[in-house]
């Protein structure tokens, strides 16, 4: 017994040390990204320095003149907003119908819709490209928005909403209907306010997904001014095509920090939502 306590006491600091070492590759990249974004190019390539000698805030200004970064940032923001709002509206409607409204073919249609959760976007990107080209939509944001809304993430949001509506007791609706509310009003006035937790989960996942989308912009967008952030980040290059690292790190910091700050504040909500989405495969 005594031996165990002694062992436990010597083990405790060791465990912590081990965990800190393991945590390094998770934390250090963020640290290095931030500090490098404030260094001169000479310092980036020079001797090992963990802290910038003088803070080169000018790097952050240069990010916006090197390419239309402000516009690209705005593109990512507005696409994320549009995709999320539309997705959440459509997912609430269909999630409610799949959970609470009885109509023939309900389960079959739900399963069919769910099957797009497993469909890799990579498989259908070529036909989608030809279709968008047919309608002269390449080099616009519409393909990114449409594929964002109707892709795997949209189907998953429907799933999230349906699961939530299933958990709402039936009596609640019946009572409201007896009180004279019609179906649409039951949905809007009774069910939607109740569904706010599920709505926020679906929104968080959709925002993150849209913010991080890479393949669709890569395939559809050529015009620098129409780039989204994931395309833009890799594009701080000199005349020879080599990355201008301090600018690339500054731009990456600007794209990552808002999400990280949001994550630190809404940690529990985000981890739960994402763990749930992880289960979908």
């Amino acid at each position, binding site marked *: 017994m005594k031996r165990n306590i002694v062992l436990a006491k010597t083990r405790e600091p060791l465990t912590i040390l081990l965990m800190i070492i393991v945590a390094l590759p*998770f934390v250090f990249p963020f640290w290095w990204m931030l500090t490098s974004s404030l260094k001169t190019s000479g310092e*980036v390539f020079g001797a090992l320095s963990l802290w910038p000698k003088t803070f080169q805030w000018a790097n952050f200004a240069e990010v916006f003149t090197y390419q239309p970064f402000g516009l690209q940032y705005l593109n990512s923001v507005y696409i994320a907003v549009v995709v999320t709002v539309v997705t959440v509206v459509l997912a609430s409607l269909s999630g409610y119908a799949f959970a609470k*409204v009885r109509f023939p073919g309900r389960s079959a249609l739900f399963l069919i819709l769910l099957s797009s959760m*497993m469909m890799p976007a990579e498989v*259908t990107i070529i036909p989608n490209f030809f279709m968008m080209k047919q309608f002269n939509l390449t080099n616009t944001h519409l393909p990114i928005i449409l594929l964002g809304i*109707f892709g795997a993430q949209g189907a998953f949001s429907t799933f999230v909403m349906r699961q939530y509506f299933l958990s709402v007791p039936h009596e609640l609706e019946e009572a409201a209907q007896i009180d004279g509310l019609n179906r649409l009003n039951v949905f809007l006035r009774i069910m939607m306010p109740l569904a706010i937790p599920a709505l926020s989960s679906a929104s968080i996942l959709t925002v993150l997904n849209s913010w991080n989308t*890479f393949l669709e912009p890569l*395939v559809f967008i050529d015009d620098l001014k129409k780039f989204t952030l994931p395309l833009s980040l890799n594009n701080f290059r000199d005349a020879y095509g080599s990355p201008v690292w301090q600018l690339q790190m500054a731009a990456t910091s600007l794209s990552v920090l808002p999400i990280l700050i949001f994550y630190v504040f809404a940690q529990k909500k985000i981890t739960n939502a994402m763990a749930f989405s992880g289960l979908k495969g």
Partner: protein
Amino acid sequence: MTKTPSANRKKNHEINRRKRGEYLFGYSCIAPQILGFLVFVLGPLVMVIVYGFENRNLLTGKTTFAGLSNFTTLFTKDPLFYKTLGNTLVFTLGLVPLSVLSSLLLALAVRKDSMRNTVFRTIYFAPVVTAAVAWAIVWKFLLQGDQGIVNKVLAVVGIHGPNWLQEPGWAMGAVIVTRVIKNLGMNIIIYLAAVTNLPDELYEAARIDGASKLQAFRKLTVPLLMPTTLMITMITVIGSLKIFDHIMLMTEGGPSNATMVLVYYIYYQGFRFFETGYASALSLVLFVIVLGLTLAQWGIGKRFSYQEG
């Protein structure tokens, strides 16, 4: 008290009208998404099958029927295809055990609720919310040859690190490790949910019976977590088969095709060489593999839920 036939008919009529209203409401609610599914998922899936049997050039727009030629080229004349499959397999077999095992150990390490563990959980999960593109770019920066911080640190302890992403022997390993770190937090969270449900009494009993911690881990923890482990494994396998962004941003399939994986090869054939017919045939290979694994995953999931019930 008896109802007249006409009253009955009236009632039936009323019920039918109600039902029709309900159907109509239901169908209207799901219509936009079903339509989107048909146009952007099912339609393209049918088309990718059609394209697989065509010579289809993205740039010239020339399209001719090709019969099976894309597939015969794929399976008999394209050594790069087999290399690609091999690389995808190496990537998956390298990533999955590393990811599953380390997430299990870390989940056990941070399972108890305490301030310290909350901090570590936050840290392990931070890369998950970060864009894969950002993560890959930063790691490419860390892993440069002599200029990269990883090699500068190694030099301090007297090791001359390789040019990680430029040497065929190292590139794949480097990409695997950075990807493991990126998504490990997700697996940790899934494990944590399962770990908190482990019955304390069993461990107490094992301790009283004189079992060591290692024995308890092997004989209790591992078997009890098996359903979770299987599920995490399947999710991670499917995710690995679809790896694209890390490859695109860190190595572009190089050096000398050492990291050319299936999805990158689809992109490469379709959007760099404009051979969209051939790329569609490749997409079908990906689809069949993912479909097979997804069905297997559902099968496994079902078996376990039946066992529990």
